[in-house]
């Protein structure tokens, strides 16, 4: 509904008045002085008399800032002019949020914050449809980053609502995820990886309550990048966003490895299988309390390591991802009774979703099935007070399923199946141990060299890319090429080309 007559003039007058108050430097040392005077003015102009006029005011003011951005974008020193206006407006928002309602009444503050964030989101999405490729991200970027920094200042009232503020921004950034606002994607990545945002959501909020929210934002990013990364040649705009993503992941790998450890499974569901290095980056972290033995240690006894029996946290309910429920029911009954055998022959049909080459299979279902069956196998082995070894993992319903998948799937399906296993080769823990034994067993028992070659390819493509390489991947490959029981060096595919033979020899040399 249009603004009542005269409203826009009043709103513009008030907005400019506030900016003048704010720019008057003496206030920058005492922001409250000008604020209380201005609130009285807002009241006098009826802006604070209820939800609607206030909403109209913020929509007008936000639009005014964005129009100012478009009008001045090509002026020299445009950003200083635009930002000083926007920063003043954002300071007003922050003061209104902080001082609305009683100091203990957080819901008034958060309702106001969410309302304003919602208005900015709405204007951005509408603007993107109007301007399409002429859309300018900078005005919105400035509003969000400055508002977040204002509300992150060290202040007792703000500290009290810090988790809700972060939640409001995560919700906003999810609504503005790159798939919804591709014209805003670079600013979006700047915003979700701003050092203050990272510090708050991953370090300062107690009990890691921000971790799940942050994992969802990264999943939004991976989902957006996936179709562009599926093709090895990256266009410049994609490569720029991808490199930015790698930088963020490196900071997470270095500062918050446990976060990546906990959410690796969800991330691998949405990272394209050909994104080898980025996936290795996700799979390489290990808890900072852990000391990794050098994988090249001669005669390393993996099953003797202290940490090898630890159950890694997987913060996603992968069992729930096994759909439909009838399939999960059949799976559980097969795992329990190792019957009916028909279950095995129907496995592939449950996993296949199309006949289009390159997208025949349900990757998240494949990943969930492999991890679920593997964890059930570990529990089963444990129930006999044993640990995963080449002897304890065989002759079981679990291994039936894995061997059936290795034999029954086509090249594409088996590639995804082997990837699901290789994604579990991480730092020393029970999953790494089980799946390392599992993939080596599948190699040793394979009834065709094609399977052995494909296992080698899946491991090798993860090893030949630039660092980092997950510890579990290294110890598995070393075992494969060192242990004569696998007769690795006798296979033709090891000598299929001089550079491949040289590559294996160089890896073998670094192992010895």
């Amino acid at each position: 509904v249009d603004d009542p007559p005269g409203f826009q003039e009043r709103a513009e007058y008030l907005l400019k008045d506030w900016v003048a108050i704010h720019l008057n430097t003496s206030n920058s040392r005492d922001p409250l002085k000008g604020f209380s005077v201005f609130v009285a003015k807002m009241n006098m102009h009826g802006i604070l008399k209820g939800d609607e006029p206030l909403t109209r005011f913020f929509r007008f003011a936000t639009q005014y800032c964005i129009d100012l951005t478009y009008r001045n974008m090509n002026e020299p020193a445009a950003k200083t002019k635009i930002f000083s206006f926007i920063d003043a407006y954002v300071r007003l928002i922050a003061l209104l949020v902080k001082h609305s309602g009683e100091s203990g009444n957080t819901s008034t503050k958060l309702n106001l914050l969410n309302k304003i964030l919602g208005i900015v989101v709405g204007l951005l999405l509408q603007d993107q449809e109007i301007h399409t490729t002429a859309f300018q991200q900078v005005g919105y970027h400035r509003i969000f980053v400055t508002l977040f920094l204002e509300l992150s200042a060290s202040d007792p009232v703000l500290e009290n609502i810090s988790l809700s503020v972060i939640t409001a921004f995560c919700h906003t950034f999810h609504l503005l995820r790159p798939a919804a606002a591709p014209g805003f994607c670079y600013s979006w990545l700047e915003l979700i990886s701003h050092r203050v945002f990272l510090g708050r959501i991953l370090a300062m909020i107690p009990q890691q309550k921000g971790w799940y929210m942050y994992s969802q934002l990264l999943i939004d990013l991976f989902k957006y990048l996936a179709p562009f990364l599926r093709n090895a040649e990256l266009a410049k705009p994609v490569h720029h966003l991808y490199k930015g993503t790698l930088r963020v992941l490196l900071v997470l790998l270095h500062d918050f490895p446990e976060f990546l450890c906990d959410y690796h499974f969800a991330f691998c569901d949405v990272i394209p299988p050909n994104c080898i290095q980025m996936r290795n980056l996700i799979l390489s972290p290990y808890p900072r309390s852990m000391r990794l033995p050098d994988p090249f240690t001669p005669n390393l006894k993996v099953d003797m390591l202290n940490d090898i029996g630890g159950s890694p946290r997987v913060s996603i309910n992968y069992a729930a991802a096994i759909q439909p429920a009838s399939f999960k029911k059949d799976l559980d009954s097969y795992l329990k009774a190792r019957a009916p055998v028909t279950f095995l022959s129907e496995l592939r049909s449950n996993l296949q979703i199309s006949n289009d080459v390159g997208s025949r299979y349900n990757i998240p279902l494949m990943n969930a099935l492999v991890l679920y069956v593997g964890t059930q196998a570990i529990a089963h082995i444990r129930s006999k007070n044993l640990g995963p070894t080449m002897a304890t993992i065989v002759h079981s319903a679990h291994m039936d399923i894995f061997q059936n998948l290795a034999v029954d799937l086509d090249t594409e399906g088996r590639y995804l199946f082997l990837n699901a296993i290789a994604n579990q080769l991480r730092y020393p823990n029970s999953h790494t141990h089980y799946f390392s034994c599992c993939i080596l067993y599948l190699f040793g028992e394979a009834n065709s060299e094609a399977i052995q070659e494909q296992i080698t390819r899946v491991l090798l493509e993860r090893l030949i890319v630039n660092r980092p390489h997950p510890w579990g991947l290294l110890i598995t490959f070393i075992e494969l090429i060192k242990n004569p029981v696998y007769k690795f060096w006798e296979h033709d595919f090891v000598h299929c080309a001089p550079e491949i033979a040289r590559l294996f020899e160089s890896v073998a040399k670094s192992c010895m």
Partner: protein
Amino acid sequence: PLGTSKLQKEHQIQFQRMEAAYYHLPTPSDSERLRPYLQRQPVQTPAHFPQQQLPHSDTVEFFQRLSPETLFFVFYYMEGTKAQYLAAKALKKQSWRFHTKYMMWFQRHEEPKVINEEYEQGTYIYFDYEKWGQRKKEGFTFEYKYLE
């Protein structure tokens, strides 16, 4: 074995908008408070200048090795930043004190003649940021209520 996969229509539209945004990328200073003096725009300096950040340059120890003039420059021209904060800490370690009314740094030139609960009085050196130089001030009263 997955091969390439064609971009669907929606991805092509997304790519066009991303590509358009690629030609006016956010710069790091878009996420920083406005700097009245020194914007965060990297300036191409001659190759023989140190191009990388000096090691440990974000520690008080590093700032303590800087001259007072340099610290004063950082303090007055990089306000609201970690650099200003570190410069202030380094100045205090060199027994400078910040006068919040004159907004200048003072250092005792000799033992004060008078000391009591409210103030101390004597000869000081202070850094005058308007004339950009150190000055001596005799018989100055430093009221403790202005000591930051």
